[in-house]
């Protein structure tokens, strides 16, 4: 009894009135404490289990970026008559910034004379493996593009001694359990990803915090996590997210490029392609073949200085690999890396808004319109 009285004095939950004496009897205080502890444990366990269940059934919760993109695509399809053709551009942040899908949709609709859906599925740091995962998910979710454009970025195939850019910062909680087995074939760090995926079952509130906070309070996340967990507010209904600025001074451009050089410092010394991403690309072409989805490979524009970062042997191996795969699977290659002047870039490999418009018009004219048999002027 004496211990209890002493404890209450130091307890954060003190039942003390203004005279300083405790009002409740010890038995009811014990009962109250029991109620607090058990209620807290029960509520926490229920919330824990509920969140786990929600994360298992809702990909939107685990991978909000994919979920948001898929929802946008769904809405786009629903806004057009059923059976309208669909063009989807899969890739990294380069098409995300550089391909104005909405403009392409307007041009195509005008030229073909029927509605066409064009969607920009550019996701930051999404390499060939994640593109394959996203394509399979899209097909399972009932989206069948009439034409699939796939960005090919040499840096995603050349990690050097470290992790490739699509693996760095990748969170295992975004994957389904079956996908974790699939990515093992592409030299992904499956053990780490599996541990992160399992962590969702042990501590869901902690493991899914970026995904949840990305929805509730995005400003609490640092920029690189915001990119990975949410669509930027500037993203339009066709998935295009242009850069904020449209013009840069030389000093700003130089500063941005020096940061990019640091990020890709391994490229000049990397001469060979990684086998994992090449296998993923091959499997993607195979899936497109089986599903009878026409696929075109697109090498996005790059500034001359950025292109010089690649080792010549890497470029040669990359071109060789692409042509072999294109011949094997009957797909086209559109090498657009020299299409745009250097002034069109924000940092050497992401297009500015005006550059994106010019690139989009040329890509639509040279790549997409011929597919729909639009006669060239």
């Amino acid at each position, binding site marked *: 009894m004496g*211990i*209890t009285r*002493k*404890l*209450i004095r*130091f*307890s*954060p*939950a*003190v*039942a*003390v009135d203004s005279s300083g004496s405790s009002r409740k009897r010890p038995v009811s*205080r*014990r*009962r*109250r*404490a*029991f*109620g*607090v*502890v*058990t*209620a*807290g*444990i*029960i*509520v*926490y366990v229920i*919330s824990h289990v509920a969140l786990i269940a929600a994360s298992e059934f809702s990909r939107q919760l685990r991978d909000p970026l994919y979920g948001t993109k898929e929802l946008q695509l769904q809405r786009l399809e629903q806004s057009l008559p059923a059976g309208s053709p669909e063009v989807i551009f899969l890739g990294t942040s380069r098409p995300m910034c550089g391909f104005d899908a909405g403009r392409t949709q307007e041009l195509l609709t005008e030229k073909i004379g029927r509605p066409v859906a064009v969607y920009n599925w550019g996701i930051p740091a999404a390499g060939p493996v994640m593109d394959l995962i996203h394509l399979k998910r899209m097909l399972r979710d009932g989206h069948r593009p009439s034409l699939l454009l796939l960005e090919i970025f040499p840096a995603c195939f050349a990690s050097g001694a470290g992790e490739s850019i699509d693996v760095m910062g990748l969170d295992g909680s975004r994957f389904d359990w079956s996908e974790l087995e699939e990515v093992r074939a592409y030299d992904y760090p499956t053990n780490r990803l599996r541990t992160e995926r399992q*962590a969702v079952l*042990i*501590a869901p*509130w*902690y493991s899914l*915090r*970026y995904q*949840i*906070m990305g929805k*509730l309070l995005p*400003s*609490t*996340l*640092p920029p690189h*996590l915001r990119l990975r967990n949410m669509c930027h507010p500037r993203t339009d209904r066709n998935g295009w997210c242009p850069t904020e600025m449209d013009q840069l001074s030389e000093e700003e451009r130089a500063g941005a490029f020096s940061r990019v050089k640091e990020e890709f410092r391994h490229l000049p010394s990397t001469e060979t392609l990684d086998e994992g991403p090449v296998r993923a690309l091959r499997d993607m072409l195979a899936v497109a073949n089986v599903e009878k989805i026409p696929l075109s490979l697109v090498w996005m524009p790059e500034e001359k200085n950025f292109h010089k970062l690649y080792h010549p042997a890497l470029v040669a191996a990359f071109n060789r690999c692409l042509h072999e795969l294109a011949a094997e699977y009957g797909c086209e290659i559109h090498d657009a890396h020299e299409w745009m002047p250097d002034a069109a870039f924000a940092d050497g490999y992401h297009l500015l808004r005006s550059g994106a418009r010019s690139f989009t018009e040329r890509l639509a004219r040279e790549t997409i319109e011929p597919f729909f048999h639009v006669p060239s002027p």
Partner: protein
Amino acid sequence: MILQALRGAFDACANWVIGINSTLAPYTDWYFSRLHELLPDPFFNTQAFLLFFALVFALYWLVPRRWQMTRIWLLVAASFHFYAAWSKDLAFLVTTTTLADYLFGRLMGATERKKIRFGVVFASIAMNLGVLCYFKYRGFFLNELHDSLLRLGYDPGYGKLDVARIIVPFGISFYTFEAISYAVDVYRRKIAAERSLPRFLLFILFFPHLVSGPIVRAGDFLRQSRRPKRWNWIRAQVGAQFLLMGVFKKMAIADRMALFCDQVFRNPAGYSSEACWLAVLAFAIRIYCDFSGYSDMAVGLAHLFGYKLTNNFNMPYLAENVSEFWRRWHISLSNWLRDYIFIPLSGGRGSSQLRICASLVLTLTIGGIWHGAGWSYILLFGLCFGLMQIIHREFKSYCTTRPRLDAALQTKLGTCFRVLLTFFCTNLCWPLFQPDLGKALELYGRMFSFAAGKSIGISEGIFWGIVAFVAFCHLLGKSGLWQRINARLPAPILGIGCAGCLCATMLVAPPTGASFVYFQF
């Protein structure tokens, strides 16, 4: 001859230990490396620690109440493993010095002869301080000696030590002071020498307070360890709430504020004056929430085993003067310094002002040295806080001759002014709370030069939101409103609130969890 014999005996002991170690090494290395994989860090806010705690907690309360010693041995073993998971060699070191302190205590308890008792307490203090100085201060002192000799034109005869490569045992400053306080209390006959080895081992090694305090007193803890523990729901609630509060302070506030201040403290050059001032404010909140959060977790964990540790913080940023600040900040250390350094030095009441002031500065300098081997810690605690305390004492005596001024300062507005002034003065000292004095001076330079530069680059809305939240919580606690609300809330609502708080803590934890600031001590 005696020295040679002693040296021979030491060599023989060392060889014996080395021999045993090399025989057992393959097994122990495997065991402890597995342990390290399971519990890599001695941090309370990790999944690995939660599993460890859950296991120990379950086993502890499953042991019948009448098997008290079994429970104590269980906690001792768990605490040893907790430390050994980080470093088995240092765990053995801590255990060995604890064993030595126990024997010293028994020796003092076995004799009434003052000279022997004095010799034993001296030996105990020398051993504990020797170990502390060897690990924590030898790098600093040897390097300073090296530089001084070079400046005087002499050859030091040795190269500078790489301080970063010296491994300092976690918690060495804390358990050293606990051991010294035990030895002194036994010498002064404040407490009897502890006869039970497992209880004494638990007093030092108890894992909630082992690595970062609070600094417990032997009399209090050993008395608790003799009392059989019965499961108590009130204690469980208190423990859980302290634990939750600590986790929230650490993960939701301290780690978030670290994002603001660490980048500026690491490299102040290039940041604007405004950014530097914000970083100092962020650091003030960070260090408070980090350390008090850890202390709350330690207190909460101890409660869950039926032990009460002293609260280490009492809303220090609501202190009305610097003296009160040190009665509210790291209370266990302040009390230790007062009882074992300041009072013996100052001679108690009736001593001259000069002696009291000198004792104050010296005590705080020792407090600074306790924190770290660096001039910045010595300057911070010795000079800055010591001077502020002296100024406060002088101003207080001045106010006694100025009743109107004194009355004005006691009004609500006056009190508010004093609280803000104390907060501002302590904030000004925090840049010194880092090992690199150069960086601290650089930060001061940026703060007071109205320099232009880059901003912190993280949402200031979140920053000010956290500052406002911490201020609000302080006011809620001080007004007693929280206690009244807490007492009236129905149990399920309070429980749901705690569960919600835990979920919110995990949601807002930032990407990079910083380690506890006070772990370096």
